[in-house]
């Protein structure tokens, strides 16, 4: 006996179309909220009275406290690049180009991207969790009742601090990475010091440095906005409330920020090349 399945999406596509429409509208609403959140935070960076003390405190948290982890990842990234680069280039008799390969890889791509990913893991998750807890314990409501703009109070100082910290951390990552490449390429594998640094000096131009700097600025804005946004709107989540909601918000913040950093890196690279 042949039976018809009325719930099959091919026979009755309306529910599927409705779900897709609803999801699309939700996604656009979410993008709009993120955009407004970012713009509001950026405007309040310049609103009186200045929040220098809060920005400096956040520079300490986002920047200063990340120095060790950035240094560590920068050193090992450079060392791996030195090893891999040397053994690849030596096959073509071009090991002299190792300095250029390490420096350009780090300054153009790996420095800004890996710095952003490390800051997401260390400070971005903390931002989302801290603001999320403030949301669920009515501390953000308390700010509103005191006529203190919550976005200005919570997001703007973090945004300002990230804009200051990201390029500096990236620069540090690049320099330590180049020294890591030197450690493996020259000290370990015997490439001449002058050859390594000579190639670094001759291959890196200002356009590479400014491109990396621009990337780090964009990542600073994206990472801080997304992490703070997830915490700030924890209460709107449908997949978890209370402590669970904060946990979910933190996970979303880290995952979305990391993915967006990689996507933005591709987009920026395609414009900068």
């Amino acid at each position, binding site marked *: 006996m042949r039976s018809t399945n009325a719930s099959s999406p091919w026979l009755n596509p309306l529910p599927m179309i409705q779900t897709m429409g609803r999801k699309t509208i939700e996604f656009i609403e979410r993008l709009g909220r993120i955009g407004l959140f970012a713009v509001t935070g950026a405007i309040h960076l310049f609103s009186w009275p200045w929040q220098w003390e809060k920005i400096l405190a956040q520079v300490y948290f986002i920047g200063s406290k990340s120095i060790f982890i950035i240094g560590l990842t920068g050193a090992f990234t450079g060392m791996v690049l030195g090893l891999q680069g040397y053994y690849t280039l030596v096959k073509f008799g071009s090991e002299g180009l190792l300095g250029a390969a390490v420096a350009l890889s780090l300054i153009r791509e790996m420095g800004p991207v890996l710095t952003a990913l490390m800051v997401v893991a260390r400070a971005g998750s903390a931002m989302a969790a*801290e603001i999320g807890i403030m949301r669920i314990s009515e*501390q953000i409501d308390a700010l509103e*009742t005191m*006529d203190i703009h919550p976005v200005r109070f919570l997001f703007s100082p973090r945004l300002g601090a990230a804009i200051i910290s990201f390029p500096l951390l990236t620069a540090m990552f690049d320099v330590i990475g180049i020294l890591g490449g030197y450690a493996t390429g020259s000290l370990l594998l015997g490439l001449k010091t002058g050859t390594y640094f000579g190639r670094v000096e001759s291959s890196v131009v200002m356009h590479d440095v400014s491109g990396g700097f621009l990337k780090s600025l964009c990542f600073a804005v994206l990472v801080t906005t997304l992490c703070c946004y997830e915490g700030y709107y924890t209460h709107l989540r449908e997949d978890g409330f209370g402590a669970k909601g904060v946990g979910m918000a933190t996970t979303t913040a880290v995952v979305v920020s990391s993915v967006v950093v990689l996507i933005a890196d591709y987009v920026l690279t395609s414009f900068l090349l």
Partner: protein
Amino acid sequence: MNSALIEFRDVHKAFGANAVLKGVDLSIYAGEISTIIGKSGIGKSVLLKHIIGLLAPDSGQIFFDNVALDRMSGVQRKAMKITCSYMFQGTALFDSMTVYENIALPLREHRKYPAKEIRSRVREKMAQLDIAGIENSYPSQLSGGTKKRVAMARALITEPRVVLFDEPTTGLDPIRKAAAHQMIVDYQKQFGFTAIMVSHEIPDVFFISQRIAMLDEGRIIFQGACKEIQTSQHPAVREFLDSAARANGLCPESGKRNGGSDATR
């Protein structure tokens, strides 16, 4: 009678399918202590949050000084917020700040006073609320009662014109509860602010309030003077007051303790 300072007109509010306010009409008069009573989870805090603008009604209007909240300009709304203060049921203290920083925050952020003046105001308020000496403690290191007093200090530090108290004495021992009520009365007399309080402390609130409103099933079923509510024959009001009287060991109707002594002051 003077016109109301705050007025709810047919205010409705629902959270999804759960209708909490179903046509609230309520008047709050300037310079008085008005208390909203009602069963737990009936929407008293929701009502209070509408006044300060934390929630917006689905329909109906709320007037502050005869101006509808939804028609206020940004400047008017800011001016209104500056004159109001809110003490949260769960205290909503900033857990990463010390007690001193919590109380000083509204003054610091609005930069109205120099640091020295802020310090002296905070210390004065802490002394009045019997919490001196814990300036450097964090909220997580304090008992529930002490947190309430810190939250009250933060609410009163700006010397507001309207103060909204959401269950200000829940969790306090009887002595501190009486002290907190007395402080609200004293401050209200001293500064002449309008106090709107959500409380379950019956009969205590009858002694400190000029006006009582009872919320039940999404509507205000009674509003009037304290003496009037005690003689009200509305079944829901009666049931609530009698239950409260039984819980406090008082004889229903008479307001006398079961032992026979007069509970009213």
